[in-house]
């Protein structure tokens, strides 16, 4: 069983953290992953930076720009992660846009992920049907779980289809927005969380976009298996550096 599937079976609400590889400094990637695990984070999304990230807000985009300036590339990231499984046990997911993966070669990319011990991928601009028709077999051959996004506008029929081809969890985008643009959840969002929870899908849901503190984390995990924090953690890294990760995790999930 894949580490993501194992983790999802644990009887707790999961905290997943996104950060951009190569940010704030090129060689921070591994130590940030280790610190996050040490401080009780359940799952990590490692952002593969892209020059033109359509679904990201200004905070994550700026971190990607910095990471690229620092010299981050797909090749460098794979080198940095080469021995990660000697020290880190929690699920690791690479989140990136499709073009860099496509240029690396989808099969070569998946193979490398398997060698390293990466468990899953989140590729926001790889559409569900293109994945299903062209790449699903390859991903599965290398034991990778592909995570799909749904939004408040995704139809019930489409959610059911996404559920049928998902093997881990469904990434529930909290509201119609890019990353980092929300603060707090209102009725519209909680109704949407509840609506999806009531669909009794076979894959659990993890909510992302708009989680920045203990309040929003608690709100989100009332209805879902877990929550993902991205922009708020990047902001923390930008202002307080990577030595205060414990402070951030405690602030969110205590």
């Amino acid at each position, binding site marked *: 069983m894949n580490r993501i599937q194992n983790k999802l079976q644990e009887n707790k609400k999961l905290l997943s953290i996104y950060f951009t590889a190569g940010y704030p400094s090129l060689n921070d990637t591994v130590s940030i992953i280790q610190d996050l695990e040490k401080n009780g984070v359940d799952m990590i999304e490692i952002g593969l930076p*892209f020059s033109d990230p359509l*679904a990201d807000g200004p905070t994550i985009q700026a971190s990607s720009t910095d990471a690229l300036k620092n010299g981050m590339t*797909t090749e460098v990231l794979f080198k940095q992660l080469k021995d990660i499984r000697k020290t880190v046990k929690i699920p690791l997911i690479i989140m990136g846009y499709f*073009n860099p993966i496509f240029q690396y070669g989808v099969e070569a990319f998946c193979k490398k992920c398997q060698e390293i011990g990466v468990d899953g991928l989140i590729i926001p601009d790889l*559409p569900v049907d293109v994945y299903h028709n062209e790449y699903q077999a390859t991903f599965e051959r290398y034991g990778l779980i592909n995570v799909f996004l749904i*939004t408040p506008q*995704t139809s019930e029929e*489409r959610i059911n289809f996404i559920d049928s081809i998902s093997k881990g969890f469904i990434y529930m985008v909290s509201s119609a927005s890019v990353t980092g643009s929300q603060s707090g959840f209102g009725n519209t969002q909680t109704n949407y969380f509840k609506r999806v929870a009531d669909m009794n899908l076979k894959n659990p849901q993890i909510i992302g976009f708009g989680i920045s503190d203990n309040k929003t984390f608690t709100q989100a995990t009332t209805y879902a298996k877990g929550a993902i924090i991205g922009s708020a953690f990047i902001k923390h890294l930008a202002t307080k550096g990577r030595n205060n990760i414990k402070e951030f995790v405690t602030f969110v999930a205590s």
Partner: protein
Amino acid sequence: MNYNVNEKGYYGEFGGAYIPEMLYPNVEELRQNYLKVMAEPDFKKEFDQLLKDYVGRPSPLYFAKRLSEKYNTKIYLKREDLNHTGAHKINNTIGQILMAKRLGKHRIIAETGAGQHGVATATVCALMGLECIVYMGEIDIARQAPNVARMKMLGAKVMPALSGSRTLKDATNEAIRDWINNPVDTHYIIGSAIGPHPYPDMVTRFQSIISEEIKWQLKEQTGHENPNYVVACIGGGSNAAGTYYHYLHEPEVGIIAVEAAGHGVDSGESAATSVLGKEGIIHGCKTLLMQTKDGQITEPYSISAGLDYPGVGPMHAHLCKTGRAEFMAITDDDAMNAGLELCKLEGIIPAIESSHALAIFKQRTFKSNDVVVVSLSGRGDKDLENYINYFKI
């Protein structure tokens, strides 16, 4: 060989809809409706009427006598520069605003490079009384000041794109983000034959009025509806798509696509995608794309704000890969000189984008009885400052 889009939105291997889930409902709504709406008699009637009475179509097909004499061939100019707002862009924005209204959208967003598409979008929004937000790279805002002023006068809000190269590519990213954040009431009027399916096809169909007119105008003037060549400049490629459309499946008509070489194809400052690009994904479609080995999108360069885009529309990528179109790259210098030459020989000041297409006559020989139709996609008023600075006028 088929050069039209297939039912999945591909031109050969290029096209598709590589979009985040957040955009899926918007794009899907458009995909399911655009052909149906375009076929409605009411839609056609309103579209045709506006093109005629508001845009001023048909645009003339002008036999450029002195230019023809100079290059010893028969050169016809399709005068899109005479359209209302000064470029071909209005053909598409009229079509898309009517589409948006029928889909019940009341907020319009757009991206613009040279400002022509922004002005055309602001114009149709004013015409229809819809809110209009135009994203434009900060650098383009500086170099296309008259068009920025026009958009503001027309009631549009011009939002500077501050990321990346602060030009067209980044303006497009910002517009897409806006759309993600406003999925229900907003229609995104894409100005070029790029973007997720159905945009490249929809934009091409709206612009295909250009080749439709060339056919009957040429027949009237020469007795034949097919020229030997059709020529257009390509950034994303909307004027080119419209100029080629009715000739794609006429093999005796040569198709010439002119890209911006900037300071030279190998100079590191260029926008010649057909030479420098390889297959990749940008702004929602698979196409030819200038990028690093690692898949990061490269910042293109051209003196022309309308051509410095790192990709081309997927239809053009297909025309390039199959060899249906001949691609040429023209430097800033050659384009500027060709622009000035048209002023002196024909009394027409072309947009710098269009000057790229005109510059091919110095590089490529045509037979004396060849009929060559060049799309004069826009007028040069917006570029006066660039011309002034370049020629120290």
